[in-house]
Structure formats: structure tokens, C-alpha cells
């Protein structure tokens, strides 16, 4: 199996993703420059965090038109696994691969801290190694993580069990006070209807080694590996 980590101008979490996949998980991985119009031979594509195109206009608004995104779309349509982390999630939203949009954090601050996530669904390629309702400790670092979707869209997400992570307390309570950015219903991560594209605001690649304070990020990467084996 092979992972591909896309690099846009302004991406800055690509190296951490590459490092976790290659050096912590010993899996084949390559960088994919955003100008590549075709991608082939990959089983999972990672859209990493960062500030693609300086977040100009809107976060992810310009990156979604990079040549590589057509290839990513085709790859996703054929069922390939795609994980968008932070700016990657924002790009997937702008590209329409996931539904909804990101607004500025409610308190207008860039928030960089560990948060707790409740695993709402584990019947998918990204959380199959988690227990339902398991709490993961994963850091966030963003200014636009305030997820928004219209009423109908939210109903659809719920009906199709597409909400994968919600911000919660250390014991798993999903409440307003544990919502760092104002995201609708504390939503921190979602999958598409097909179940092969995940977007999440927190950074699993920043907590995949004990020395960094949490290894909970590994649940997500290892679930992907398990799915691909």
C-alpha cells in the first residue's frame, strides 16, 4: 500500500504527516506536488494542514483549483481513501468533496491546544480501531474551525452517520463549554456519504508518538492501514 501526501504552496504539516507514515508506521509514502495533474499507485491520499495560498480569499478556496485536486476528486470517486487534516479539511469542503463550510473561530482567536474528541462512528476506514464513544486526545491549531452546514445538510449528516468526531470533555461529554471554536454541534470531523473521504480539524500527525504527549493520532492512521491491508 502507498500513501501520498499532497503539498500545496503554503502547506506546512506535510512533513509531519510524511514522518508519521514513513518513520513511525513504516509505510511507503510519497509527496505529491500540487501541480501533478494525475495521481496513480496510491491507496490513501493525505491533504495536510497549513496555510495553502496564505488562506487568501478564504481558507482552501484557491487550493481547491490546484491541478492535483482534479486527480484527488477522481481518486475519491473511484473509492480511494482521502484524509484532509485541518487546511486539508478546509480544501475538501471548498472542493465539494465534503459538505459544509468553515467560518472564523467564534472567539476570533487562533487556537492551538490539545482537545478531546468523542468518536461518534467507528464503522468506517478511519476509526475502525476505535471503540464507539472512545475519547481521543488530539491537538488543534486553527483560526477557521467553526464548522457550518445548513439545516438540511446537518440532517443528512446525522441520517447517514457522517459525523465522526465531536469536541468533548475528557470524559466524553459533548457540551458547548468543550467546543473550542463554535463549530456547529461540536463537529470536529466528518466523512462523505460514500465513507472514503474524511475531514478533521485536529492534527493526528502531531500526536502519534508517546514523547509528544499523546499517541491517539495513531488510531486514525492505523485504522486506515487496517482498511487497506
Amino acid at each position: 500500500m502507498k500513501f501520498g501526501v499532497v503539498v500545496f504552496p503554503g502547506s506546512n504539516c506535510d512533513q509531519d504527516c510524511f514522518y508519521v507514515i514513513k518513520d513511525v508506521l513504516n509505510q511507503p509514502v510519497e509527496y505529491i506536488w500540487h501541480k501533478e495533474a494525475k495521481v496513480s499507485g496510491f491507496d490513501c491520499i493525505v491533504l495536510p494542514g497549513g496555510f495553502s495560498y496564505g488562506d487568501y480569499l478564504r481558507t482552501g478556496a484557491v487550493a481547491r483549483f490546484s491541478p492535483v485536486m482534479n486527480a484527488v476528486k477522481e481518486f475519491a470517486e473511484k473509492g480511494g481513501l482521502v484524509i484532509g487534516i485541518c487546511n486539508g479539511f478546509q480544501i475538501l469542503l471548498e472542493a465539494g468533496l465534503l459538505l459544509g463550510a468553515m467560518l472564523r473561530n467564534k472567539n476570533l482567536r487562533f487556537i492551538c491546544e490539545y482537545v478531546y474528541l468523542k468518536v461518534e462512528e467507528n464503522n468506517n476506514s478511519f476509526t475502525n480501531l476505535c471503540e464507539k464513544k472512545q475519547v481521543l486526545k488530539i491537538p488543534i491549531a486553527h483560526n477557521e474551525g467553526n464548522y457550518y452546514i445548513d439545516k438540511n445538510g446537518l440532517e443528512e449528516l446525522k441520517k447517514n452517520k457522517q459525523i465522526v468526531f465531536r469536541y468533548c470533555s475528557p470524559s466524553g461529554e459533548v457540551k458547548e463549554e468543550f467546543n473550542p471554536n463554535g463549530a456547529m454541534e461540536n463537529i470536529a470531523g466528518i466523512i462523505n456519504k460514500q465513507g472514503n473521504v474524511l475531514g478533521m480539524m485536529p492534527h493526528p500527525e502531531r500526536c502519534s508518538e508517546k514523547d509528544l504527549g499523546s499517541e491517539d493520532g495513531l488510531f486514525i492512521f492505523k485504522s486506515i492501514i487496517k482498511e487497506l491491508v
Partner: protein
Amino acid sequence: MSFKENSRNPEEESRMLEAEIYITLKKVVSDPQGLTIKHALESISYQKVIKDVRIGKLISLKLEINDKKKAKILVNEMCKKLLANPIIEDYKFRLTPHPNPSSSKGGGKR
């Protein structure tokens, strides 16, 4: 002081249009920036008159096109594809003729 206008060709003038595009958050979407600015205005004693503040964007485009109808279609497309996110933003724009800036070079004494 004036400069000669013989280099400004009326045909060239009409070839450019300027689009002023206003992009705003949809009313149903919360605007924390607007709220913060509202509080800031209230704190500098405008609290009696300020009811609401919403923050938006102004994008201006200069288009090398003289057909207003065609320009309207193109600007709409640009807004829908890139300039505005239809999930959270509304847009409106107006088109006005824009004098060709190259007419100010070469021509005329100061």
C-alpha cells in the same frame, strides 16, 4: 495643469469595465468579527445608535470587455466558482465603465 487628451481614445475608454463585488456572510451565519466590532463601537460611545455590524469584502475587478451583458454573466460565474462561497456568502456587484489606464501614458505635456 492639464495634459492633452488626444491619446485617450473613446473606443479604448469603453473597452474596460470595472466590477465592484460585495461579498457578505449570509444572514443566517454568525459573524463573530461583526460582533466584536459592534462591541468596539459601543465602547467608544456609539452604543446608543449601533444596532448591528456585519463585516464583508469588496473585490474590484477590471475587465477588458465592453459588453455589459457578457460581463455580467462572467462576473456571476466568477463569484459562484471562486470569489464567494455560496454556502455561507451572498454577493452582489455593479459594473461601471472604466477608462483605459494606458491612455494616461505618453500623450500630453504637464
